[in-house]
């Protein structure tokens, strides 16, 4: 029975991981930027939610009205003024990856430093909707369920946009072949910038959702960047449909592993899964070989 509860908990958590990874997958799949500072945007959303409820006594979900515009704008600016020069001067994707990794690694340090200066390294958490509910016979916290449903809704929205709108078709084209997309008249730069910004906004949103049930500190960003990276690589770069599923896989494995082995070894379990996938199917679980 407990195992089943852990399993359900893993699915709920995994849905969140899927959402977190979705933003990064958009950034890497469309804009081709591997953003190592991604987790810091996540953290921004979490901290904004924290202050919204602690300082202003408002529903933390309202914090997205602040964190989404800020995350969107900052990400857009970063792409426009920091990433585009790199894209322009790189002869191929590997060279671009090298440059981007270095710059975003630097940004990660800058953002984390700022977070530590302003908010110190203390652990933050708050209580919101932490009432138990019954899901398929398992008892879970309402906040986790709400977060999961939010994640599913967002993922579904993104999927629909990509599948059925013109913008979505353009984004999918850019993901497959940016050069060809440009040749058929798609403004690759503009879409890449907007998608990159949207990725940042998604990060902040998922930060808000996760903050309702997990505590965090100014140094937690790295952990979520890592999880997002692992899920993206497992799902296959640019594959939005697989991201949610890969996230759920990670969530389930982490929860079951944490329960069966040890809860303080989550990163080790994440990496274990990561290595396994890399060795067996490096192109991603859901790509057709």
């Amino acid at each position, binding site marked *: 029975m407990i195992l089943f509860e852990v399993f359900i908990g893993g699915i709920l958590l995994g849905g969140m991981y899927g959402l977190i990874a979705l933003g990064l997958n958009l950034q890497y799949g469309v804009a081709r930027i591997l953003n190592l500072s991604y987790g810091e945007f996540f953290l921004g959303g979490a901290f904004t939610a924290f202050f919204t409820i602690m300082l202003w006594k408002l529903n933390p979900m309202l914090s997205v009205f602040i964190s989404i515009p800020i995350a969107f704008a900052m990400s857009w600016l970063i792409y426009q003024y920091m990433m585009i020069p790199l894209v322009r001067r790189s002869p191929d994707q590997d060279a671009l*990856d090298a440059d981007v*990794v*270095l710059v975003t690694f630097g*940004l990660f340090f*800058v953002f984390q*430093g700022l977070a530590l200066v302003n908010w110190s390294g203390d652990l933050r958490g708050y209580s919101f909707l932490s009432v138990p509910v019954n899901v398929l016979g398992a008892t879970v916290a309402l906040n986790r369920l709400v977060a999961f449903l939010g994640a599913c809704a967002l993922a579904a929205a993104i999927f629909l946009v990509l599948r059925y709108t013109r913008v979505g078709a353009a984004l999918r084209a850019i993901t497959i072949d940016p050069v060809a997309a440009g040749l058929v008249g798609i403004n690759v730069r503009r879409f890449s910038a907007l998608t990159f910004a949207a990725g940042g906004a998604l990060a902040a949103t998922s930060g808000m959702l996760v903050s309702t049930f997990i505590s965090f500190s100014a140094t937690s960003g790295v952990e979520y960047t890592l999880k997002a990276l*692992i899920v993206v690589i497992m799902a296959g770069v640019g594959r939005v449909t697989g991201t949610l599923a890969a996230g759920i896989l990670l969530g389930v494995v982490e929860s079951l592993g944490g329960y069966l082995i040890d809860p303080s070894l989550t*990163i080790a379990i994440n990496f274990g899964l990561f290595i396994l996938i890399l060795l067996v199917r490096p192109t991603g679980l859901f790509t057709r070989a």
Partner: protein
Amino acid sequence: MALGAIILALLPMYASNYVISIFIVLFANVALATAWAFFSGATRYISLATASFFGIGIYVLAIAHVYVPVPVALAAAAIVGFLVAAVVGLSTLRLRGVYFVVFTFGLTELIHQIINWWEINVNKTTSRYIFTDVPNVNIYETLLVIALITIVGSWYVSKIRLGFALRAIGEDETVARHSGINTTRVKVLCFALSASVMSLVGAVLALRYPYIDASIAFNNSWSFQVLIAALLGGAGRAWGPAVGAVPLVLLSDLLAGSFPHHFSIALGLCFVVIVYFLPGGVTRLILRLYHAWWAEQTKTRTH
């Protein structure tokens, strides 16, 4: 350079403990940065895992020095670093560079968590004491030797076949493969060599700490500082990272103690600047100026 080495070797006799301490940190950074550039500079496989191997060195020393003499513990640190890097390399270096980078990005956190768990659950402790009394001067001399050997070693390798193989991998790995280079073996070997130097440096520095725990040992800042030193100085020449390490250590001495987070921010910005404005690092700038100056000299002489 030999003259400089002799001067540095004799310095401790005349300098204060404070100066010796700064040089210790400097030599450590020089060795780390040179080791990093040895692999990542040539092959363009960016390793963000310097802190992992550095920390492994610290931990091996902390555990081993209780049972064996310090020199043996140091050797053990280097060996463990080599082995861990070989395992990591074999699993990730066969794939595209981006997977390697992502993996090294998380490696420090991974090892940190594992050791934390092991210490708490198996050893029922969080910190370890280091019961040695090695004088600062010895540490100074040891690190000086390590730094020199790393620089000379890096220079030497660049002149033999292995160095060519490394550079070819960084330029175009497909060409390297089809020209007869066993790219996986070269990458894993060189990655492991650079990691063993990093572990050795960590082990030597650990002798200065009264005690250590996983958070002290595994700190991403080391990965970052070393990256900056190497890129600032120029990862293309054996002596480049050494040049870059100097301003970094001076800056860190000024800021890191009082304003560690501001130091982080400053480093991050400095880093971003390097990538955009100094892709070859300071050495390339120096060399360009030097060649321009030399061209001027030869021109005036022929007239």
